[in-house]
């Protein structure tokens, strides 16, 4: 299992770079239709064990020019016990490191504003469940095996 170690950022914690694209079945459909294929979108992601699902900023959805394929209910500290309803989108997410890439080709994600926090993707436990994540606070590093 390839792994990489990176420094924890003082403000946000375990951040790393990812690449996003439209989901594989949508990509195939665009090609079959002769429609333009969006470019891959590089983004900054936060590994968040407190998030049960993965979330992306609206700017990512806009760049990929995709439409929702589902809905979901989300609870955050400010929603209290009344879940917020949001659209979900299917995307492809690539965790890249030193020439190795772990793809998630059909990942449903929610769209919520994140960019003001210094990253555009929140990697939740739906993805982390398929990785080994070590948070070494005293050494100020984290390791992700993908």
């Amino acid at each position, binding site marked *: 299992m390839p792994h990489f170690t990176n420094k924890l950022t003082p403000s946000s914690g375990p951040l790393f770079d990812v690449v996003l694209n439209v989901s594989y*079945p949508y990509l*195939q*459909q665009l090609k079959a239709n002769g429609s333009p294929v969006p470019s891959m979108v590089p983004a900054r992601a936060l590994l*968040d064990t407190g998030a049960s699902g993965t979330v992306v900023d609206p700017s990512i959805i806009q760049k990929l020019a995709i439409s929702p394929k*589902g809905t979901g*209910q989300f609870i955050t500290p400010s929603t209290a016990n009344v879940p*917020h309803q949001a659209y979900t989108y299917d995307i492809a997410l690539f965790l890249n490191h030193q020439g190795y890439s772990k793809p998630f080709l*059909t990942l449903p994600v929610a769209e919520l504003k*994140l960019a*003001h926090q210094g990253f555009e993707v929140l990697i939740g436990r739906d993805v982390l469940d398929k990785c080994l994540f070590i948070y070494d606070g005293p050494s100020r590093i984290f390791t992700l095996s993908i």
Partner: protein
Amino acid sequence: MQILEKEIQTYQKELPNLLSEQGKYVLIHNQDINGPYVAYEDALNIGYEKYKLEPFLIKKIEENETVFFLSRDLQV
């Protein structure tokens, strides 16, 4: 929610009839319901094959919809 409004209404209307297949996924286009499918990916693949670039909805059949928890306060 305006996008997929018809599909969401169709799902809500048909949910009582789908509960015997809880945990599986349905693919909905307007009032047409396809499935159920065991995996989200199966529903998505068939959705694009059948409806091409037209809107469609995929929902997991659940009596009580799963709520996602986010420990950060995000702007809507």
